[in-house]
């Protein structure tokens, strides 16, 4: 065993610093990745929040709701009677557009649809996973304003998803509805602004509308079947 043969110093002085740096580096990297995942889950990339969606017709809610002042229910007829708010049949569009803008190019798809009895294919904007059973009827009834979930639709030239629609977002309200409730009369009012005493009002409405306590509202089967 020739020990002399081997030089026993195999690393330069700098190696010590490098070693410790790399150790620290690994730790920070792990933490960083964790942070990345955490934010990515909630990012608008994952939730599609605030994304404009390509539609067969560039229908402007801003114009129809904000401008003309149509009520939500003129088109979304079943919002008070059904889980599904309802997408207007072409007929509804033609009610007006058989007189107005009858040869506007942008409306051609609508007329075509009406002529050929071919439905329009809209792209869903506020899209919940298929295992979530959201019901418009009850939310509208219990004083949850359209704008609370759909945002300032009257100011949206093109429709986009205003809220993340993540489960934590739903639960935020299901755990403490008083934070968002408004009088039934104001549900369809786009201009409504929450009063300063929202919590007070909300608590009072909650009692008045007999809204169940969080124990019920956070039961799984309320939304998942």
């Amino acid at each position, binding site marked *: *065993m020739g*020990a*002399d043969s*081997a*030089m*026993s*110093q*195999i*690393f*330069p*002085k*700098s*190696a*010590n610093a490098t*070693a*410790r740096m790399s*150790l620290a580096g690994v730790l920070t990297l792990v933490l960083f990745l964790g942070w990345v995942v955490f934010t990515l889950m909630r990012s608008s990339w994952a939730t599609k929040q605030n994304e404009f969606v390509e539609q067969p017709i560039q229908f402007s809610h801003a114009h129809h709701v904000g401008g003309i002042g149509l009520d939500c229910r003129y088109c979304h007829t079943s919002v008070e009677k059904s889980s599904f708010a309802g997408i207007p049949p072409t007929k509804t569009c033609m009610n007006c557009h058989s007189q107005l803008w009858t040869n506007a190019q942008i409306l051609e798809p609508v007329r075509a649809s009406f002529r050929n009895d071919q439905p329009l294919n809209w792209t869903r904007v506020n899209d919940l996973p298929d295992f979530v059973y959201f019901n418009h009827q009850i939310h509208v009834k219990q004083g949850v304003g359209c704008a609370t979930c759909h945002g300032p639709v009257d100011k949206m030239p093109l429709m986009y998803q205003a809220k993340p629609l993540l489960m934590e977002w739903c639960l935020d309200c299901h755990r403490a509805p008083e934070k968002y409730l408004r009088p039934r009369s104001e549900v369809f009012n786009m201009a409504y602004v929450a009063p300063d005493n929202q919590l007070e009002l909300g608590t009072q409405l909650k009692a008045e509308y007999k809204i169940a306590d969080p124990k019920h509202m*956070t039961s799984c089967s309320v939304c998942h079947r």
Partner: protein
Amino acid sequence: MSHGPETPERYGLMAEFESPQTLLAAAHAVARAGYTKTDAFSPMPIHGLAEALGFEEHILPKVVLGGGIMGLIGGYGLEYWTQVIAFPQNIGGRPYHAWVAFIPPAYETTILLAALSCFGCLLFLCGFPRPYHPVFNVPRFSMATSDRFFLVIEADDPKFSLDGTKTFLQGLTAMEVVSVDE
């Protein structure tokens, strides 16, 4: 001899011994002689060697205990917060705070953190990782991990003097005494 062309700064003097017994004896002698900045090297643990060099330390157990307590509190805290505060749910009619069921995970986290802190603390105290160290500059030191025993007196020891210390070491049945460069 492995001196570079220019003479670099000296780390200390290293004496080589043949057996644990001789090393241990030498260590006692060195301590008696009043040297403080010293160290001994052996391929396996030799009981009483560190003490012979006048070394004592009791941090490790305390750190481990601390780690354990953190693990316990952290683990049980997590369970309590998630099951009772964050999202309480009626699971099979069991209470929200089902402390009986919460014991096993808390127990495991306790051990986990204790063990990790023990390992971390060991590295920290030994200053690992430390791939470079002056003593490696001595070629024969490569045998310190197989069958040779070494003793070093560092140059910045107050009592250190090249010749005096060298002769002193040679007096301790050292097989050989060499100088160690930084």
